């Protein structure tokens, strides 16, 4: 089946490309206008700019590389390009031949003083076929109050309806009832397996290096696959092709610096961005000389880099990478105990954009992704090391074909070579090495082909139809541990040699989105998506942690299957100033995994982790309400989600259905920012969500003199609700006023000295392009003690007759003010 599909796909692609000129030749009455949409000041390509023919009220969006293509009948039209935060571009075009038109978009901020802005606001959320898709720009995100001054992409998307945080101190996020492993997180197309630093308090995405964020929580297009719940597609900035710039920030616990500029003006550019926390450095001077803290600490750092170069009008190459690490070390020289924990992601991407003709765009990528976790500890001659991780080598090719204004066709292929290191351990006491087995590397191939078309059926009905075929095969070397069902011991080990097939899976993944435009202001959208996911995240912990390990599908573990139906009503008000939507969804999940009751962490060593798994299914459904004010000095949104997320495992909870730990009945987020003046911007965020579903003890019993707890139904209890208010104020000094004040002082000095003021020369450095701002924020303004965990401790004694359990909660952050100085020049 695999060979059939791939052979036919490539045959199809070759035929498609070869015959395109003929297709053009046949359509003599139709001509194409195409090109790239860019930011005029930086040369950065604009993703998702709305390009349309005013007379036809039809058009297209620029793709991830800023490319657009529109083919219409011969004629004279007005081409309009709109992009949030930019002056609309309008140009009359006489389309009697194919036209290449690159559009430079000018920022509204720059142009409002001199040029009249033609304001035609986008109605994309109403007119597009995408359902459950949100695109955000970093400028929008930067206005939101940030925890300890660090602008955070993941924290921001968790304010959207349908997207939930697991709470402070948890990595990952949850989309429409899916687990954290069911989100496809892409940074410049490379998969990021753990997107959090410091257990979820910061994301790995440095705001200064990020250009745009697209979150797809339903109706996933066919070019994306391998995950059930969502796609978070993050594009890094390409770097300024016009001039050199540096920007950064100095905060209470971390600082960052970004440098960008042209390699060759208007042809190529680079950007490099770094960030590091320094809690460890700041804490050390306060530690006593004999304190373990003297040699201990925690920090994280990350580095983003990207270069791009235009080889010709049709070819462009990009190379980008990310490297980040969290490091925790502890050294007690008195107790002779040491501990080192490190985890992090690395990615590397090389891409080649090629324009075959004005209708066919291709991107080819070679991608490397790696996530690993390591732990080492030693005491009294005992040494212990643990390592786990996942590494991918990925090659993909994606085509965008724009045959007419009614169609946008995408097709492509993707191949990934996975190497999983589920959990490898070594330990020794003195010279004796314990047998934790050899370091395991589970290997697998994953591949997919897809085809999709976004097309108009009529003026009101537009359909996005896609089909993806995916295939996964686990290969050797691999040892399968067969367990004796009576005594649980390994009864047989089956060895698979290198590259020998262990188990394979495959299947078609159809997706359909439909939009029916009720009028220019409102539409109804529906979607159906079926996805397969061949990798699982296994967690023994009650919360998502970097220790969670990725495991492949195997003989025992079937692919996760997800089917999602969603229906939405979208309406804009006041010339698209306000966007509103109501979406309902239902999701069915099959082949979900959990560890067996009573599984202990060591049980996947010298064994297959999947021998400890049990399998079940889940369902999620809910309704999402969203009101957003896009434009004006005051903007923000209100989101509310009502949702239910359930799981059923025959071997858990006596086979009874239970709520997933991240089930939230109610989830509210309010976000607003107000530009009081050019100097001051204020913002506020308030969030509320129903407490996590947890399993709590219901009874005590005595064993060996100890009271142990007997647990009640799984996740049958709710932690107290989570809610929090954050405020921020950003002060941006008016540089022109400052220069003017300096100039006045200079004039005064000249006058006092009797000099001719007309001979004043303003120093050049005064007028240099330099900006700075102060960001003040207060996290958790009303000091809410939001529960991080709830546990029970025992008080009193049996002898005195007052032995009783007492519930306690641990909370992490009280009210936390912070200040960050940001600069740009």
């Amino acid at each position, binding site marked *: 089946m695999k060979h059939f599909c791939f052979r036919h796909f490539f045959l199809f692609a070759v035929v498609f490309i070869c015959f395109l000129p003929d297709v053009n030749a046949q359509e003599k009455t139709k001509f194409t206008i195409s090109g790239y949409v860019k930011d005029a000041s930086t040369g950065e390509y604009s993703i998702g700019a709305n390009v349309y023919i005013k007379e036809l009220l039809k058009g297209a969006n620029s793709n991830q590389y800023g490319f657009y293509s529109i083919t219409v009948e011969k004629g004279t039209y007005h081409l309009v390009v709109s992009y949030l935060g930019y002056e609309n571009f309008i140009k009359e075009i006489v389309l009697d031949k194919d036209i290449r038109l690159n559009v430079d978009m000018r920022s509204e901020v720059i142009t409002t003083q001199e040029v009249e802005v033609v304001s035609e606001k986008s109605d994309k959320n109403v007119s597009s076929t995408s359902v459950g898709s949100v695109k955000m720009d970093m400028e929008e995100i930067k206005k939101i109050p940030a925890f300890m001054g660090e602008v955070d992409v993941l924290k921001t998307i968790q304010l959207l309806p349908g997207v939930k945080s697991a709470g402070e101190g948890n990595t990952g996020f949850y989309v429409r009832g899916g687990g954290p492993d069911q989100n496809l997180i892409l940074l410049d197309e490379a998969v990021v397996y753990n997107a959090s630093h410091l257990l979820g308090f910061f994301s790995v995405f440095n705001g200064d290096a990020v250009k745009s964020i697209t979150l797809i929580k339903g109706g996933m297009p066919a070019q994306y696959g391998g995950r059930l719940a969502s796609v978070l597609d993050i594009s890094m900035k390409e770097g300024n092709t016009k001039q050199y710039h540096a920007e950064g920030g100095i905060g209470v616990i971390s600082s960052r610096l970004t440098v960008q500029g042209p390699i060759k003006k208007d042809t190529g550019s680079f950007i490099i961005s770094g960030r590091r926390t320094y809690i460890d450095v700041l804490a050390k001077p306060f530690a006593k000389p004999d304190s373990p803290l003297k040699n201990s600490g925690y920090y994280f750092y990350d580095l983003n880099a990207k270069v791009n170069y235009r080889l010709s009008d049709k070819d462009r190459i990009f190379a980008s990478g990310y490297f980040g690490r969290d490091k925790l070390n502890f050294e007690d020289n008195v107790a002779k105990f040491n501990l080192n924990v490190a985890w992090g992601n690395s990615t590397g991407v090389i891409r080649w954009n090629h324009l075959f003709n004005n209708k066919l765009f291709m991107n080819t990528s070679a991608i490397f992704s790696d996530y690993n976790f390591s732990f080492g500890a030693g005491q009294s001659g005992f040494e212990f090391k643990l390592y786990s991780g996942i590494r991918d080598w990925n090659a993909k090719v994606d085509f965008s074909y724009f045959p007419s204004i009614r169609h946008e066709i995408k097709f492509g292929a993707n191949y990934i070579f996975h190497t999983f290191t589920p959990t490898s351990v070594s330990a020794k006491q003195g010279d004796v090495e314990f047998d934790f087995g050899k370091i395991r590397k589970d290997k697998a191939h994953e591949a997919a082909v897809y085809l999709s078309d976004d097309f108009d059926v009529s003026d009101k009905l537009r359909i996005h139809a896609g089909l993806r075929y995916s295939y996964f095969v686990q290969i050797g070397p691999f040892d399968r541990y067969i367990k004796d069902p009576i005594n649980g011991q390994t009864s047989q080990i089956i060895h698979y040699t290198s590259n020998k097939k262990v188990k394979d899976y495959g299947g078609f993944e159809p997706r359909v989105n439909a939009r029916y435009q009720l009028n220019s202001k409102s539409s109804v959208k529906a979607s159906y998506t079926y996805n397969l996911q061949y990798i699982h995240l296994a967690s023994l912990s009650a919360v998502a942690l970097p220790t969670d390990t990725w495991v492949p599908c195997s003989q025992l573990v079937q692919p996760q299957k997800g089917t999602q139906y969603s229906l939405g009503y979208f309406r804009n008000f006041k010339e698209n100033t306000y966007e509103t939507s109501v979406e309902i969804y239902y999701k069915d999940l099959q082949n979900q995994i959990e560890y067996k009751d009573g599984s202990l962490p*060591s049980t996947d060593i010298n064994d297959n982790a999947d021998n400890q798994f049990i399998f079940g299914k889940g369902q999620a459904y809910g309704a999402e309400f969203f009101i957003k004010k896009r434009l004006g000095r005051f903007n923000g949104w209100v989101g509310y989600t009502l949702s239910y997320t359930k799981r059923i495992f025959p071997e858990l909870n006596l086979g009874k259905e239970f709520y997933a730990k991240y089930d939230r009945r109610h989830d509210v987020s309010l976000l607003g920012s107000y530009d009081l003046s050019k100097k001051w911007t204020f913002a506020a965020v308030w969030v509320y969500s129903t407490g996590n579903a947890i399993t709590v003890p219901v009874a005590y019993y005595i064993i060996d003199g100890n009271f142990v707890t007997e647990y009640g139904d799984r996740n049958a209890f709710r932690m107290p609700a989570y809610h929090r208010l954050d405020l921020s104020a950003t002060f941006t000094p008016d540089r022109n006023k400052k220069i003017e004040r300096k100039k006045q002082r200079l004039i005064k000095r000249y006058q006092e000295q009797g000099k001719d003021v007309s001979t004043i020369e303003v120093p050049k450095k005064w007028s240099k392009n330099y900006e700075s701002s102060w960001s003040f924020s207060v996290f958790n303004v009303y000091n809410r003690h939001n529960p991080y965990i709830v546990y029970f401790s025992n008080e009193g004694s049996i002898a005195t007759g007052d032995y009783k359990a007492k519930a306690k909660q*641990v909370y992490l952050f009280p009210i936390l003010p912070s200040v960050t100085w940001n600069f740009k020049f």
Partner: protein
Amino acid sequence: MKKLILCSIASLMFLISCTEDINLNVVGAEKKIVIEGSIENGHPANVIVTRNSPLSQTIDVNTILVTDAKVYVSNGVITDTLVLSIDSFASFPLVYKGSLVIGAPQQTYYLTVIADGKTFTSITTIPAPVELDSVWWQAQPPRDSLGYAWAHLSEPAGYGNAYKWFAKRATADRRFISPYASSFDDKFIDGKSFDFAYNRGTDPNDQATAPPEKEEDGFFKITDTVYIKFCTIDYYTAKFYTTYEAALQTNGNPFSSPVSIISNINGGGLGVWGGFGCSYDTILPPQ
């Protein structure tokens, strides 16, 4: 081992966290019988029968005591009817004690308990004892008079063995006490010859009335005479004790899923019926 990792990450979290009391109304506990039975080579069976107690209530000893149970132990030939006795040296002072059936290595024993109108059964086997090669006391730096009990074990080749460690100070402890993680199997040590150490466990009953001095907590003194009891246990007994010890450890640990203790009692009861193949050693203070 992963617990250590979780604990170290937990320590990072707790550097920045605060704890406070909250009011939670936990309901839903079903009344259950708890059985803690053992039979050791050379000794008759001991069985403690109690009830669980709802978390929402203060524990009342009178409600958890079961004094009218019928307890039988059989080796397949002889059936012993156990008699309720007071034993101030046991972990719980009321113990059903046997006399006719004496534990022997490689023998299987059947337990029947009738209590609260229900019948509970279980089976266990006493594995062949494995003796430690040697035992000794070793100071734990930087201390020079406090340390751990060390032992050398030559683990017999062949997977499937499991062990439980107990220790008792000659003068200070009423009974043999297991420290945390005292149960282990030979998954990683099969056929190995190696040194290992245990800290001193604490008797929860002693702890309730007379908390130990902090400095000595978890250590043996250089002057202590320490008796070591090292037992082999079968698969299901090991499963119970490893999950029991994990449950003790995870109680209140935010990073762990709740651990359900895997019981080998049939009929809806909680607890364990375990066979112990034990050998004994003594650590004497240096002369």
